[in-house]
């Protein structure tokens, strides 16, 4: 049976719609019920969380979770829609360890906050970087430079005079 339909049967109230995303079953769910559904998804045997994607649609954010089950060889896509003003969602770190870094990366580049994440810091860009680059309104014209502090930590500033030669 199609796992997306299965989820819809189990949680009729929290699934907005189901469909197919290029031959992968997809379910769009409400953001409040993500944790409950994720638990169920894990029970259903989807032990591999392949990917977390955050997309900025200017008026809203979408988060897409791609799951895979080694036992059943099945795919499942979960999609959650978030407000543009306050993008926040529950963390899946406790269920899939890989979500730790994937969520940190999404936080870093797209700027979506994950509630309950134990270590929600920037991962690719240094701490103190202004803005989230993969948002559509990210200002590319401002050059930000990194210099080294006393203990070798990164200090971000728009002034590169310490670093640049001339």
């Amino acid at each position, binding site marked *: 049976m199609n796992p997306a339909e299965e989820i819809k049967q189990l949680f009729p109230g929290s699934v907005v719609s189901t469909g197919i995303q290029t031959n992968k079953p997809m379910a769009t769910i409400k953001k409040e019920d993500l944790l409950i559904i994720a638990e169920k998804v894990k029970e259903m045997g989807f032990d591999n969380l392949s990917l977390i994607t955050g997309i900025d649609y200017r008026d809203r954010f979408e988060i897409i979770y791609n799951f895979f089950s080694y036992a059943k060889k099945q795919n499942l896509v979960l999609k959650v829609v978030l407000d543009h003003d306050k993008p926040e969602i529950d963390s899946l770190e406790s269920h899939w360890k890989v979500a730790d870094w994937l969520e940190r990366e999404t936080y870093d580049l797209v700027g979506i906050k994950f509630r309950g994440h134990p270590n929600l810091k920037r991962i690719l860009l240094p701490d103190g970087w202004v803005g989230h680059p993969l948002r559509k309104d990210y200002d590319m014209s401002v050059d930000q*430079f990194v210099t080294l502090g006393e203990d070798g930590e990164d200090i971000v500033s728009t002034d590169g005079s310490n670093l640049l030669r001339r």
Partner: protein
Amino acid sequence: MDPLTIDTTKIKITKKKPVTALDKLNDTGLISTVLAAREREGLILFSTIDQVFNWARLSSLWPVTSGLACCAIEMMATAMAHHDVARFGMEIFRASPRQADLMFVAGTVTKRMAPRVKQLYEMMAEPKWVISVGSCANTGGPYHDSYSVLKGVDLIIPVDVYIPGCPPRPEAWIYGIIQLREKIKNKGYGAKWGLNK
């Protein structure tokens, strides 16, 4: 001949490049700057000894092991059996910058890496040289538009030789190394001494 089937390796392009490094420096009017710098340090006195030292320096350039990105793999390939940079006495890749003479900036210098590259350069003992390899290190290259990439490593440290390519093939590396040897033979010290400013 059909333009499609023309063998591109046969196309010869007339280079208007100066023949040697010395010509190049004369061209750009930099040689007086260099001589002034060397006179200040009093090094012009022992020119024969200087030449011997320069010969030694160009013969044993020990690079520091610092690969940054794609070009680092070609740096490894340059050191490996088919191209064998050891022929020039350069196979001793020192992991510690204190013992190295030459730094290959091999790959993209990101904003986050830039201060560390600079620090690495400052840790090296004089005399030292820098070769910037690949489009990323030369000008930012493919990532010129990116928010997190420095647009050329020569913005932070002086560069002696630029090797274009993305990544340059090992022969191009060795060609660049030969250019640097040429430069050392004529001028000794590296870019910090007033060349390429």
